[in-house]
């Protein structure tokens, strides 16, 4: 589908949104074509949308979708554009619906402890306002300073402190959602806007979160708020081997401390990488091979008591506490450090500029050691295939308060400037293999990013089984003409005839 100047739909969009909010310039489109996931820079122009719209309200979004539905034009929703799968990347041109202008705070309900916001708002900016009421919204991804609420809904995001406060799916109570036909519905628990638990009807809220823009666009959300924590404690411990660190992180997560907000395990590849190439690494003795950190939030008296318990557990298992300075500093810097364009190394040890990418999965605690070895083997193979890749090690983060499963990530440095078709193919194959390892250990292909990118997406039908057929049926029912983010999640299979144009 290609929209050209003079196309009637362009004029209709301008009438609905005003001239300033319908963008057709090359730079306007190029800058809404990519996300931070690794990207074949040499193929940037292939992902361009035909135009960009910036609606200012639910009604305007609905009108855009009604037009797109009528004219069968692909629509890709875009909020922060910080996702690590490519939900916001157009594959078939069409219209990018950029919802950043819908960022108003509509209500702060102090009695029911909720707020209602436009989905173009950023959580940090929201928290600046909420802090005046000693409240906060604890959805805390690594991209906290720049990701937006709508993207968190579209990807069903994961929060670093989710073991204490829950993840986006728990924190978003309800939202206005524009269906691909332009119809506006409200989804939540039951019909309520501020209801946290309902048994009425199908639980549609989960369906309309994490669909990567394939089922419509969320425009206004009601969020759950908490008292702004009075105290934070984030101890870091060092270990001489992975197994000891693994044992400790398990004990900490299973301890049942109420203020426990999450724990992170750094494997030996991660520590080696930090030691070798992280300019902000504070030198540790070479005997340090693995690290664990935990984070606690709450009132000072409860954090102190919980912290003492966790310190006791770690000490009794031989962990060495790294001290207050490293503990506080490293945790405080968690957002700023996650995506700096670091350098990596070729196999010969040459330092080259590389950007960071992380592949994630949800793995049960008992699967972590084996998945780690299998994943590093894949990274090693990738490295042998092309010098544009480097293995930056793995993290495992608790998904919840009981320690059942972990967001498991392997960080790969990619020399994107040198990515060519061969290296891209190797990367896609490696992603498929990482996902296969995950499934063979009973895990889920993604804990937080989504699994709709090339490579891993091939295994989604296997992961979901009969559930994938239900996904296809739902997609067909909700989006009869496949206009919403076509080409993602193998959902073209829902339609007898391939819709839109073939990918180039």
């Amino acid at each position, binding site marked *: 589908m290609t929209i050209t100047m003079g196309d009637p739909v362009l004029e209709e969009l301008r009438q609905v949104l005003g001239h300033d909010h319908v*963008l057709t*310039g*090359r*730079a*306007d489109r*190029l*800058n*809404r074509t*990519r*996300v*931070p*996931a690794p*990207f074949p*820079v*040499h193929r*940037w*122009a292939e992902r361009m949308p035909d135009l960009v719209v*910036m609606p200012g309200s639910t009604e305007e979004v609905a009108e855009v979708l009604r037009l797109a539905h009528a004219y069968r034009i692909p629509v890709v929703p875009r909020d*922060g*554009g*910080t996702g690590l799968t490519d939900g916001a990347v157009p594959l078939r041109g069409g219209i990018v619906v*950029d919802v*950043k*202008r819908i*960022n108003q705070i509509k209500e702060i309900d102090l009695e029911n402890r909720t707020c209602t916001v436009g989905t*173009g708002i*950023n959580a*940090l*900016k929201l928290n*600046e306002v909420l802090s005046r009421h000693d409240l906060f919204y604890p959805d805390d991804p690594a*991209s906290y*300073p*720049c990701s937006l609420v709508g993207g968190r809904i579209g990807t069903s995001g994961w929060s670093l402190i989710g073991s204490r406060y829950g993840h986006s799916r728990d924190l978003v109570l309800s939202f206005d959602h524009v269906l691909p036909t332009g119809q506006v519905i409200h989804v939540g628990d039951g019909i309520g806007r501020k209801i946290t638990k309902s048994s009425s009807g199908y639980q549609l809220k989960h369906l309309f979160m994490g669909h990567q823009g394939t089922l419509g666009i969320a425009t206004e959300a009601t969020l759950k708020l908490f008292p702004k924590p009075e105290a934070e404690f984030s101890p870091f411990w060092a270990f001489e081997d992975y197994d000891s660190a693994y044992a400790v992180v398990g004990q900490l997560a299973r301890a049942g401390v109420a203020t426990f907000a999450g724990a992170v395990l750094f494997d030996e590849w991660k520590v080696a990488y930090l030691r070798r190439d992280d*300019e*902000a690494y504070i030198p540790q003795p070479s005997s340090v091979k693995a690290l664990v950190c935990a984070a606690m939030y709450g009132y000072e008296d409860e954090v102190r008591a919980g912290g003492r318990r966790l310190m006791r557990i770690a000490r009794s298992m031989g962990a060495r506490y790294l001290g207050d300075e490293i503990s506080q500093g490293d945790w405080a*810097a968690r*957002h*700023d*450090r*996650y*995506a*700096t*364009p*670091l350098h990596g190394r070729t196999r010969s040890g040459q330092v080259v*500029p590389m*950007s960071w990418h992380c592949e994630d999965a949800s793995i049960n605690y008992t699967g972590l050691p084996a998945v780690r070895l299998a994943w590093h083997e894949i990274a090693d193979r990738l490295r042998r295939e092309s010098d544009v890749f480097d293995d930056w090690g793995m993290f495992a983060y608790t998904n919840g308060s009981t320690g059942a499963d972990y967001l498991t990530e392997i960080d790969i440095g990619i020399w*994107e*400037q040198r990515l060519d078709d061969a290296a891209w193919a190797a990367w896609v194959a490696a992603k498929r293999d990482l996902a296969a390892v995950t499934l063979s250990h009973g895990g889920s292909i993604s804990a937080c990013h989504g699994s709709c990118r090339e490579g891993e997406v091939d295994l989604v039908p296997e992961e979901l089984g009969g559930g994938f057929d239900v996904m296809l049926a739902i997609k067909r029912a909700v989006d009869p003409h496949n206009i919403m983010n076509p080409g993602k999640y193998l959902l073209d299979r829902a339609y007898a005839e391939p819709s839109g144009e073939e990918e180039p």
Partner: protein
Amino acid sequence: MPDPEKRFAEEWRNAAYNCFSSGHKFCREVCPVMQVTRNESWSPTAFHANVVAMEQGSLEVAEVAADYVNCTGCGACELRCPNSLFTGDFYRFRTRTVDLVKAVRALAVREGVHQPGWQRWNLLTDEQTHEPVASEVSQERVRDWAQGLDLPVGGETILFVDCEAAFHRTTAPRAVARMLNLAGYKFGLMNEQWCCGGPAAEMGYEEQALRFAWHNLEDWRASGVRRVLVLDPHDYITFTEDYPKYFGESFDIEVVLVIELLAALLREGRLVPHVPVERTVTYHDPCRLNKRKGIWQEPREILRAIPGLTFHDVDRVSQWSYCSGAGGGLAVEKPELTARISEMRMGKAAELGVDTLVTACPWAERPLTEAGHARAIGVVDLHELLAESLGVA
């Protein structure tokens, strides 16, 4: 790709790629333009990514020149950039969005791509040797603000007062002159003062900027000036960043920010504020002082020395995301956008329940004053406030 574009892309390739490959946008929510327009095409990330696209041949400067108008040069994005924060020390690298924006604007002008407002503004500036900030701007009247103050012309130390302060906000330089006289600090006025050239440089008119800088430097040299006092943060940037770039090591003029000088005079007891000023105020950190020069302590020192004031401070880091919208030529080309940014800033002041917003930048004062009308919040220049408390207003 025409040659200048190629040379430009080569110069900026790595910086642009450092931003592009990160792909994260911590800058976005502190950028004043982005905050009010929410248009990602006008974000620091886009300003870098465009350079990558230009190098690939997918974009030409003529297609994006108008996008680069949308920057006030406040520098918030550079402070918030993780590249500067964490990898910067290692690589001796710093994100320089402000310089990049200036470079794209200059490239556009070199290739004959003009923004109508900026072109007119710089043409008039060239004719009048001062920016057309008021109707009566001319070389003959550049010292009119000092009428009756009996200030000498020339000397080792001169007070540089140009454009907005000289022709529009004249009460600010008058207050400065009176305070320096009160403290017995010797200074004179410049012999033949032209605009500092900074705004021309910001809008891409490099040749003109350099010509103006040469004139001023030669005038200083001819009259034995060793030290230049500046009260305008924009001049301060021009003299401490642009002039050394133009003239290299031969630039041996000491540049002194009046606010730092006044703070020193207070500390030494040479100025003693004694007239109570009964106002409830907050302070607007001028971007060029706080974000670009790290000067935020002295203004607060001055405010705390004034008796009678109730001062609701907002820390300097929170103010990274504040801006008046007046900088970088934005007010010339897109005054409506400047107004929206000023309104946002004034909204933050209103939340504090103050009656006065104090600032220290003549350029910020005009749009902030406009925005203050709707909220019944007055805008007062820090220099003038101190002068009032010293009894020399």
